């Protein structure tokens, strides 16, 4: 059973979103997503300063098996990207909710956070997918 921290928000495309409380969020992929992808071997990060709309494909993670797009959960500007993943993409497998974060966004509309699923909603989504 994959882990779903209750303090995070979630998307249908298996990203997690952490509200940093200062108008920015941190984004990564869920434990379920990393497990489904298998060992990750490459990450293409978004460019800092890039403006993203909701559901824009903005990063790519590639596992031994396949490439998978990462979608921006919310609208905003990319303020940070996890460069450490360049040399160590497996960090996402090891610590999807921590050191395996992918990028940070400064939100253009912080109220959009309410549109995302909470842990209970995401758990239900996974149950429905099975």
């Amino acid at each position, binding site marked *: 059973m994959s882990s779903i921290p209750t303090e995070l928000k979630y998307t249908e495309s298996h990203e997690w979103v952490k509200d940093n409380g200062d108008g920015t969020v941190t984004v990564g992929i869920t434990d379920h997503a990393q497990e489904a992808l298998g060992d990750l071997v*490459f990450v293409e990060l978004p460019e800092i300063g890039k403006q993203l709309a909701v559901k824009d494909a903005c990063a790519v993670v590639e596992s031994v098996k396949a490439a998978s797009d990462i979608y921006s959960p919310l609208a905003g500007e990319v303020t940070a990207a996890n460069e450490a993943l360049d040399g160590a993409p497996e960090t996402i497998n090891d610590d999807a909710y921590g050191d395996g974060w992918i990028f940070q966004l400064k939100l253009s509309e912080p109220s959009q956070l309410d549109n995302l699923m909470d842990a209970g909603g995401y758990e239900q989504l996974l149950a429905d997918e099975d």
Partner: protein
Amino acid sequence: MGSRTPLFPEHERLGARIVPFGGWDMPLHYGSQLDEHHAVRQQAGVFDVSHMRPVDIQGADALAFLQRLLANDVAKLKQPGKALYSCMLNADGGVIDDLICYYLGPNRYRAVVNAATADKDLAWMHACIQGASVGINSRDDLAMLAVQGPQARAKAVPLLPEALREPVLALKPFFATEQGDWLVGRTGYTGEDGFEIMLPAAEVLDLWRALLAAGVVPCGLGARDTLRLEAGMNLYGQDMTEEIGPLESGLDWTVAFEPRERDFIGRAALETQQATGELDQFVGLLLTGRGVLRSHQPVLVDDQPVGEVTSGGFSPTLQRSIALARVKPGIGDQCAVEIRGKAVPARVVEPPFVRHGKARIAL
């Protein structure tokens, strides 16, 4: 639901991720495909390859039948136990399947064919008999394990039936020895030393468990694919197909044009290809830019398409992305591969990429 090998419950018990493959439910990995890959390069791993199909070909005309059926020449097999890799071609020179053919004794051969193509292969073989004195027997009663890696000999041989141990230790590469319904060949699909073991399905569970108890790592289809790619070995259906024949998939060396009078199926078509066409070449690629090579990505020179990746992926041993690709002849050693709309630089290299745990190309 697909077909299941006798070890399916074991795979589930070990927590394998099960995927459909060629009509079978097979383990992709048991947790980490990368760990399994490294285990085979550095120690020993075992693959359940019971989905592959052994086919016995016997009878007074077996040799003549196989000399017509296969692009490689089984007459090269003089010593019992010797094996040979070959394509089985259609009349147009396309590949129906690739296989290993063992010479077991006078008038007695065994071919091992791919799972996804087994039924098609058998139908083709039967259609090719045409009154010859040949019996074709699909050995669905057998299971098959591949034990691969530098420690495969040390770990697997003591677990074999006693009568097989000495003959197996004496095997040279690409030879096999049999004992009853057991057949052990020093063959594989990883670029490492090791064995492929065919045995009665009822006995495979004991051997599998004994191998695991001896520290041999269970490995799935995922590692099998990255290992064979590093070893520069072709995968049927990707690198060669019914449309793309051996001369354009790096398998020239498996086609025996000598003796000239041997009229194997597909020969005329291949000779026409040689005489008329500028044949594409089959090469290895090492990605020097960032990304991962995948099958069907276009290969570019000066922004113009010159071919495509047929098998691509990440090489766990080299920590780089590598591929097999079919390209126009004479493209030189620099190219690019189109990955998500971007031209990423790559270098043309000669496979294999890795053998016996060591890099065989400059990085």
